[in-house]
Each structure stands twice: as structure tokens, then as C-alpha cells.
């Protein structure tokens, strides 16, 4: 451990463009295509997942346009089935699952641990290229006959339809492999590459969330892998495992599928909760309330999440015994999520809350995930689920949790780490307007679907009874508004890359180690040894006017002498 010469003022932040950083130290396609730098791989993941999000969003607009009127509006039934299937598959497998762990996580996790890179950089690059291959295969489905099975691929429909389910199965298998490699990388990095003195209780909660997510990815993704492999083998060679025409059992497929897919929804929401813990604490200038409770509930959600998959199958002919077990455990898994929300609200008590764009996303997360989580209580209930299963109530529920939860937290995290990633500040006012547009548009789109769902509007309906028209029209208007908001976000973020104000090292005053390096960071992350302060010890930072950002207090920076750490 070299001693840090604290008396020298922090190196003045030269404008990001020409200082030695990970973006500028190498140029050309090869320097990106074969980079081992976790930051570049994070940026590549970010670009690919945003492209997938855009495609998924277009498909969403198509669906909402089609549903404006009961009968055929713009496309026929088969095209509609293809559109909603791809909307689900593209957004889940190409955006929601990889985005926060692989895009933000890859960039931020090693720096939060004070490490130079993830444990296996080559595997990290391999995981990106596996993701890209899987994405190309999944989108290749468009050319080879489409996919009309729904993202759940239920047999015997998926084994008897003539759309290109085989290719989609291989794509999902390949994407699963990509997730497993990211999971292996993160778990090993968090265990083995922490900064000296950074015990488990000094890790930012974003790291805890990534750890819990990686545990789920390791334990759940292989079962999806074997399931899609069996479907592929069943379609090509006629081996009867899930297809009742060949003596198989379709409900067994549902057990296999949901054994992965329920933990998969926790793969999507846990990293989002990690981001929210960082945002709410930073923008309230208050240490997080109940650190151990939040970290513990991340792991609790990860583990109990494996016991509840049967609540997707209450009406599927699953036995009452299994249904009762699953309903009871589903209620058990609701408790850790509730505890987290209470802890976030308690964190804001007596804070100094700044309503920057990331905080607006965090607050809208509280509202949207609140509704999403609470409506899960209806669906986990044996009696009520018989009425609500596979209706628009379910559609609204998972959009509230996935879009309201994961997407809002991702946008919050993206705005939060944008200065660090690209060394530029985005246009704050426009960002706040866009955040409010997303919030209002989203509620307009999906709250009305709860009502349609309880009235009995079934899911995945191309043509619906005239009574439901009003619900669909309101929802479609909301969808267009939300779509517009995303274009506004895309606009000012791209503009900020060119004309944005150069960003200081720590614009928001966050206390995790990744903010103690320049923006954008040095290829090896840290030019000088980061000072290990508590992940939420905001008192150790002070506002520095001429830099326009926060810096370590001199006495804290001095404390970074030989081997001493500041108390958390």
C-alpha cells in the first residue's frame, strides 16, 4: 500500500476529452471488439441492450396501435401473435435480464471494489460476444418464419407450431450461457477482489444486489438451458418429454420453465433495488437505513425466489397440495421486498433531498414498484388468482414491476453514472421533464389495465369484446406518451456526449469507491489509491465550488495513510 500524498490538491479535472481515460487511450474497432477492460465491455453491453430496448419499444407501440380497436386495426392475428411474442422475448432476454448487471454492473462493480478489473476479463469479453450471438440468433427468428408461441413457449403449442421455435430455443440457450458467465465473473470478483479492509459489511448495497442476482443466475439459468434444449430436441427429433402427443407432460414443462422464470424476474428486479439503494441514500445525503436488513433481504429474495414458481400455475392443473405450498411461500417472499421499501423511505427521514433526475426515477420506482409488488399479493392468492390469472391484471402487474421497477431504476442508474461513464453532464432540466413524462405516461398506460383485467379481459387477445375498448384506448394513448418520453431521453443523452459540460469526478457526492476516480476513469480505474470510507459516509465529502463536484475532506484524504481505514 503506497502512501497517498494527501497534501497535494486533487488533480484538477482537465476536460474529459483529452485526459488519459478508458475511452480515449485506444481507438478503432479492434480496440473495442477485443477489449478486456470491464468498462468498455460495460459500454458495449449498454449500447446493445439499449438497441434491444428500442426494438422492444417499437413492438410495444405496434401492439398498442393494434389494440386501439377491437377487430383488426393494423395487422392480422398471426402478425399480432408474432409481435407480442417478440416484444416479450426481446425485452426480457435481450434487455431486462442483462441490462443492469452487464451494462451498469460491468462498468461499476470492479471500481466499487477498488479492483482493476473483474476476476476473468477474457470470460467477460466472451460473455458479451455470446450475448451478441444470441441476440442475432433471436432476431434472426424474424427472417425464418417468426415466433408466435408467447415468450413462455408453452408446449404442446411450441412443439407443434411451424414458426421457427427451434432457432429461438438455441438463441435463448446461448443467451443463458452469456448470463452464466457474467454470474460466475461477478461472484468470483466480489469474493476475491475486494479492496483490502473492505469487509462484506462495507460493500455498497449495489454490490450485494449484484451478488444475489449472480447467485440466482448461477442456480436458475441452467434449468432454462436444459428446458429449451429439450424443446429443441423434441421439435427436431421427436423425443417426447413435454409434448403430450408423444406421451410427454405439458405441466412438467411449466414446472421446468417457471423454475427458471420466476427467479428470472428477481434477476431483473434485484439489481434495480441495488441501484435504488444507492440513489436514495446519495440524493438524501443520509446513510442508508437498515443496511443489514436490505443486504439480508436481497439474499432472502434470491433464495426464497426459488420456492415460489408454482404461483404461475394455479389454474394449470397443478395439484392443490403444490398450489397451497406455492401460495404460502409466495407470501413469504413478499416480506423482504416490503422491508426494503420501508427502509428506503426511512432513509429519506431528516435528509437533504435533491430532486435531480436520478432521484425522480428513484421516487417513481417507489410508487411503481409499490403498486407492482402489492398487486403481486392478489396474484399469489389461491382464490383470487383463479379469476385474475392470464388476464390484463397480470399484464399490468408485471409491467409495473419490470418497467416501473427495473426500467425506472436502470434509467436512474444510467443518469447517475452517466458523468462517470462518459465524462459529460446531461441536461438536467430536460431530464427531469422526461422522467415525469415517463412516470405519467406509464401510469396512464398500465393502471387502466388492472381494471380491464379484473373485469375479465384475457391476455394476448388480438380481438376483444366491445366493452373493453375504452380501457385499451386509454392504455394506448399512455403508451404513445411514454414512447415519446424515451425519445426525449435518447435525444439529450446523445447531445450530452457531444456538447455536455465536462463532469467532475464526483458530481453527486456519492461515497462508493467508483467516485474516487476521474470521470471518465483511467484505463486501470484508479490513478491513486482510493480511500476506503463507508459506502454511505457522506460526511466524509464536501462540495468544492470551482470543480463543481464533491471531494474528500482533507482530513479524510490524509487518513488514507498506511493501512488505516476510516471507520464506516
Amino acid at each position, binding site marked *: 500500500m*503506497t502512501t497517498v500524498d494527501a497534501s497535494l490538491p486533487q488533480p484538477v479535472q482537465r476536460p474529459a476529452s483529452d485526459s488519459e481515460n478508458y475511452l480515449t487511450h485506444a481507438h478503432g474497432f479492434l480496440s473495442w471488439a477485443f477489449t478486456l477492460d470491464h468498462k468498455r465491455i460495460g459500454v458495449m453491453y449498454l449500447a446493445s441492450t439499449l438497441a434491444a430496448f428500442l426494438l422492444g419499444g417499437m413492438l410495444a407501440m405496434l401492439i398498442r396501435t393494434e389494440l386501439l380497436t377491437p377487430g383488426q386495426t393494423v395487422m392480422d392475428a398471426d402478425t399480432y401473435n408474432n409481435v407480442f411474442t417478440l416484444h416479450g422475448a426481446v425485452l426480457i432476454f435481450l434487455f431486462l435480464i442483462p441490462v443492469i448487471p452487464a451494462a451498469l454492473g460491468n462498468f461499476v462493480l470492479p471500481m466499487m471494489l*477498488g*479492483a*482493476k*478489473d*473483474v*476476476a*476473468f*476479463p477474457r*470470460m467477460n469479453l466472451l460473455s458479451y460476444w455470446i450475448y451478441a450471438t444470441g441476440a442475432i440468433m433471436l432476431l434472426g427468428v424474424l427472417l425464418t418464419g417468426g415466433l408466435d408461441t408467447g415468450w413462455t413457449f408453452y408446449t404442446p403449442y411450441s412443439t407443434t407450431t411451424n414458426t421457427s421455435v427451434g432457432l429461438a430455443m438455441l438463441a435463448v440457450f446461448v443467451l443463458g450461457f452469456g448470463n*452464466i458467465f457474467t*454470474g*460466475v*465473473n461477478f*461472484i*468470483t470478483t466480489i*469474493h*476475491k*477482489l475486494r*479492496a*483490502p479492509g473492505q469487509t462484506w459489511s462495507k460493500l455498497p448495497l449495489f454490490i450485494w444486489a449484484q451478488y444475489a442476482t449472480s447467485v440466482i443466475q*448461477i*442456480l*436458475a*439459468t*441452467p*434449468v432454462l*438451458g*436444459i*428446458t429449451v*434444449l*429439450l424443446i429443441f*430436441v423434441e421439435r427436431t*427429433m*421427436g*423425443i*417426447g*418429454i413435454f409434448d403430450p402427443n*408423444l*406421451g*410427454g*407432460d405439458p405441466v*412438467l414443462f411449466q414446472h*421446468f420453465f417457471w423454475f427458471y422464470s420466476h427467479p428470472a424476474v428477481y434477476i431483473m428486479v434485484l439489481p434495480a433495488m441495488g441501484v435504488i439503494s444507492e440513489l436514495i441514500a446519495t440524493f438524501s445525503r443520509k446513510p442508508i437505513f437498515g443496511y443489514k436488513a436490505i443486504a439480508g433481504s436481497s439474499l432472502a429474495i434470491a433464495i426464497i425466489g426459488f420456492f415460489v414458481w408454482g404461483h404461475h400455475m394455479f389454474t394449470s392443473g397443478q395439484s392443490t397440495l403444490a398450489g397451497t405450498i406455492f401460495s404460502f411461500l409466495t407470501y413469504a417472499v413478499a416480506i423482504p421486498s416490503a422491508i426494503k421499501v420501508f427502509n428506503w423511505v426511512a432513509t429519506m427521514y431528516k435528509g437533504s433531498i435533491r430532486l435531480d433526475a436520478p432521484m425522480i426515477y428513484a421516487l417513481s420506482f417507489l410508487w411503481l414498484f409499490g403498486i407492482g409488488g402489492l398487486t403481486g399479493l392478489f396474484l399469489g392468492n389461491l382464490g383470487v388468482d383463479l379469476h385474475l390469472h392470464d388476464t390484463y391484471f397480470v399484464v399490468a402487474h408485471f409491467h409495473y414491476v419490470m418497467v416501473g421497477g427495473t426500467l425506472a431504476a436502470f434509467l436512474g442508474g444510467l443518469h447517475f453514472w452517466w458523468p462517470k461513464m462518459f465524462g459529460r453532464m446531461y441536461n438536467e432540466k430536460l431530464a427531469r421533464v422526461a422522467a415525469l413524462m415517463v412516470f405519467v405516461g406509464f401510469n396512464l398506460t398500465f393502471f387502466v389495465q388492472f381494471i380491464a383485467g379484473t373485469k375479465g379481459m384475457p391476455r394476448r387477445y388480438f380481438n376483444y369484446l366491445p366493452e373493453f375498448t375504452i380501457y385499451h384506448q386509454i392504455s394506448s394513448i399512455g403508451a404513445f406518451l411514454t414512447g415519446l418520453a424515451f425519445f426525449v431521453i435518447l435525444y439529450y443523452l446523445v447531445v450530452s456526449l457531444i456538447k455536455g459540460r465536462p463532469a467532475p469526478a464526483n458530481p453527486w457526492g456519492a461515497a462508493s469507491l467508483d467516485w474516487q476516480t476521474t470521470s471518465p476513469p483511467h484505463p*486501470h*480505474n*484508479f*490513478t*491513486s*489509491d*482510493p480511500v476506503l470510507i463507508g459506502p454511505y459516509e457522506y460526511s466524509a465529502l464536501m462540495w468544492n465550488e470551482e470543480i463543481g463536484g464533491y471531494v474528500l475532506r482533507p482530513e479524510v484524504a490524509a487518513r488514507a495513510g498506511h493501512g488505516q481505514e476510516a471507520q464506516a
Partner: protein
Amino acid sequence: MNHGAGAAPELHHEERPELQPHFETPEQQFESGKFGMWVFLATEILLFGGLFCAYAVYRALHPEVFVYASLFLDRVLGGINTLVLICSSLTMALGVRAAQLGQRRLLIAMLSVTLLGGAGFLGIKYVEYEHKWKAGLLWGTQYRSQADGHALEHGEPGTHGTDAASHDGSAPPEPPAPAADPRAALPPAAAAALPPSVPIPEGRTFGDGENASLLPPAAIGPTGMRAPEPPPAAGEQLERRIRHEPRNVHLFFGIYFVMTGLHALHVIVGMALIGYVLFRSLRGDFGPRYFTPVDIVGLYWHLVDLIWIFLFPLLYLIE
């Protein structure tokens, strides 16, 4: 461990060329490698776990099929295969030990013998597959009934009785096909085409005499089943047991080929990895200070052996 741009870290990176830049000490790199490999092995265990679950479910649903089908699996060949894999596991472990002690020639010898073991395993597997391929013991629609010695009149209800009653006491025997033959009323061409198991609602009566009920026995539930025939004598000769072939035997072979096929694929991948490590040990890359690749490939090979240790009794030794 994060060393800034200070001079110290470069020093011990030069003298330890195999130490990758982002690790601080060789021990950290070694432990990270082993740790990451174990996490990856967890995914392999869960991948095969899914197949073991399918095995367990279908054995519970059709115990007589599994008992019947295992008659066609050669236990001796399976046993020999198990021994082959165990020996190659030993030679792999000895190879890892040789790498740790820096005995290059022993390492190369051991790795080569392990490769031979893998090839031997695949050879025996090929023999077994070819035998099944010829006998038509395949999956789904390709399955050719083995009781062809006794022409199974198509559409003759009732002969598919589950004579080889299940030995597995835990599962109740399968209820036989619907007893009354409503197809008699239909023209012969229709009767021939009609799958016996498709419920025939028209004027159907299930069960006879006083318990004629509206719905096929399955709909009524366990009480609707007729008493099973008496279980066959234990020492019955093979011929009679083959003649009474239960239905859906293809299910067993579907699972058999998926499980052993995926395992064989993993053996091939393992052999490729061992080949790569053999190539690098020929180049003399490994010694007491750096042998992680050998150790990791050894772990993978032992896992492949571990999976076969469970596959063998479950598929071959079914009583």
C-alpha cells in the same frame, strides 16, 4: 487489492509472467480460478439436475416402462464404462498431482492415458447406441415395438394390459384402456385409424354392468380403476416379459438418449480441454508455481465422472 501506478506492483509482475495484471498475488489468481470453476460446476450440476428431474417424474408415472426398457440395456457394458471413467478419473488426479510437483513427463503420460480413457468410454457408448439403433429401441415415433414376435393387432383393446406389473411398489399400476369396445359400431376403416387412447364419447359406456359410468375411468379418479392382474412370478424368463410390452416405452429411450447423449457431449468437451492442457504441458507451461489450467480441467473431468456415477445405476440397474 488495488495498486496505483506506483513502481512496486510492476516488479513482481515481471518475475511472474503468468500472473495476470489485474491480480495482486498468484495465490489470489489461483483461488479465483478454482472458485470460478466451482461456481461453473454448479451450473453443470443444475443442467443435469433438470434431466434427473425428468427421469424421476417419468419413472414415477410409468414405472413398468422403465423396468421393461432396462431389460434391453447391457449392464456389463455399462459397468465397464463406469470402470473406464473411474480409471480415467484416477489418471487425471495423478496428472494434477504431477503438475503440482512439476513432474512434466508423468503429467504428459497421465493426461494421455486420461484421453485414452475418454476415447474408450465413447467407443463403448457407440457400441451401445448402435445396438439400440438396429433394434429400433429409439425415442418417440421411431420406437419399434420389441414384442414383434407377437403381432400386435392394431386397435385390439386390452392386450396392452400392464402385465409386467410394476415392481416399484410405490406407484399404483396403470388403469387398462377402456374395457367396452365402442369402436365395434364404426366402419372398419375408422376403427383402424382411431387411436385407442382417444376418448370416444359417442354412446360410450366405461366399465360394464352396474358401474357403467359416463366418463372414462381416469376422469373419475383412483376409485374407477379395475383391480390389477396378479404380478408375474419373480423368476420369470425374459421371453415372456418381453412379450407383454407396456405402452409408451419410447419415453424411457427418449430420456436415456437425452441423458447419455448430453453426458457424451460433455465427455467430448472434456477430452478437447484435456488435449489443450496436454498441448500446453508439452510446451512446459506448467510447474509448481502455475498449474491452474490442469487443476481446472481436472475438476471438469471429475464432474463428468461424477454425473456418470449417478447416471449408470439410475438407467442401467432398474429392478
